[in-house]
């Protein structure tokens, strides 16, 4: 099938809430969530690394769960809530994980960072990782070719410990 024929193929309706805004879209079924975000949605924070679910740079949250957006066809996500790095915080009002990444210098080139942060936010919400060892294991789906892993683990551990302190304070009150 040539490109013109492909473009003439029928589109499918899909309603997605992206970072709190509802979008009613008509798209071709072969468009991945990643390409929808970076193309028509112009949300370029989410990065395309390997495009094969191996590097985690495209990690976003669907209904709060982290997934590789490169391996999801957007048409299969009708009715879901998508959160990208742009929906987590702003430069003036950063998400605690974003703040921790800045404080701990948890990046070098920054290309994997949006995926790392989305993944870390989900990891904290999941609540299965309790030790540094478990943080490292449960961040294994996010590669960093600069090798900032030590500082990434530091940043996540820092937020986790702050959350534990807040939880203990709230429990005491």
């Amino acid at each position, binding site marked *: *099938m040539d490109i013109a*024929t*492909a473009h003439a*193929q*029928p589109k*499918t309706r899909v309603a997605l809430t992206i970072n709190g805004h509802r979008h009613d879209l008509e798209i*071709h*079924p*072969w468009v*991945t969530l990643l390409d929808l975000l970076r193309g028509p949605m112009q949300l370029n924070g989410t990065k395309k690394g390997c*495009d*094969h*679910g191996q590097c*985690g740079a495209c*990690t976003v949250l669907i209904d709060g*769960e*982290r*997934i*590789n957006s490169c*391996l*999801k*066809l957007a*048409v*299969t996500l*009708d009715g879901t809530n998508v959160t990208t790095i742009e929906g987590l915080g702003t430069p003036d009002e950063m998400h605690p994980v974003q703040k921790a990444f800045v404080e701990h210098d948890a990046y070098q080139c920054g290309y994997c960072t949006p995926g790392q942060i989305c*993944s870390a936010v*989900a*990891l904290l919400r*999941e609540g*299965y990782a309790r*030790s540094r*060892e*478990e943080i*490292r*294991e*449960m961040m*294994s*789906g*996010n590669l960093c070719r600069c090798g900032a892993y030590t500082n990434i683990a530091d940043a996540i551990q820092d937020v986790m410990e702050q959350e534990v302190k807040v939880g203990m304070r709230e429990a005491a009150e």
Partner: protein
Amino acid sequence: MRPFSYTRAETLGDAMAALAANPTARVLAGGTNLIDLMKYDVERPAAIVDINRLPLKEIEELPDGGLRIGALVSNAALAYHPAVTERYPLLASAILAGASPQLRNAATTGGNLLQRTRCYYFYDPSTPCNKREPGSGCGAIGGVNRIHAILGASEHCIATHPSDMCVALAALAAIVEVEGPDGRRDIPFADFHRLPGDHPERDNTMRQGEIITAVRLECNHFARHHSYLKLRDRLSYAFALVSVAAALDVKDGMIVDIRVALGGVAHKPWRDSLAEAEFAGQPATEETFAALADRLLAGAEGQGDNDFKIPMARKAIVRALKQAAAGTPQVQSDKRIR
């Protein structure tokens, strides 16, 4: 990715009708393997049937103490479900040994069973592969075959099944429930995946138009003595070179029931229940485990690059059974093998 037509099925009937209308259509669930293969131009479906809306996301308790896992239950939901962590910890452990948290959130139970091999030749359409293109030959035989099969291979294919979850399901003797044009049927796990033989293009024994609806687990006595030991080139997020799902039912130091399934070594999760049965009544000792390992690997054959897998599998079987007997299963976050 090549263009394709798309059907969003609302019911199982919709999905089966869409498959009947187009025999070359492929079912899409989590997509973690199929979409990847479509990007590599290995899978080229003209039609996709999206089954994600089907009501197959429940984990049900069965009256006999077993569990019925809907085909669309995600790998993560299954691994962390209390009934699984308490009664089938071997399954939970095997799932957490595989892939990454992102992939486990998307990948489904049915899809895990249907994932294709990660043989490099299968993934590369510029090379011959009897599984991808029947009759074209096998690039791995006489080629680079470090990750390939040591058991049950054929002259046409030496690929391995890549799943961790399926290795545990084989050890637990799960039942696969499928539904198709001829109605529902149960497939015992041992009969679900095939050996390559003359038809490596067929991974399993499902018939045209069938869809996996659930995987059923029987009540079992392995919650105390089990271990999933996975050996791989890096400690996380890599496919197994060799993996072992070991489960024991022990009474007064003697084996009542012993299960060993191997991953990374054959075209299907490798299990020999006849060999296992011979070891019932024997003491749960290293000597017994070594004898069983020798028995399981008696027919093992290397392809050159993967010769190391034979001694590695032997040691892994013994170690996993020792871990199971001691009640100290391999921990999947702490990679140290004790």
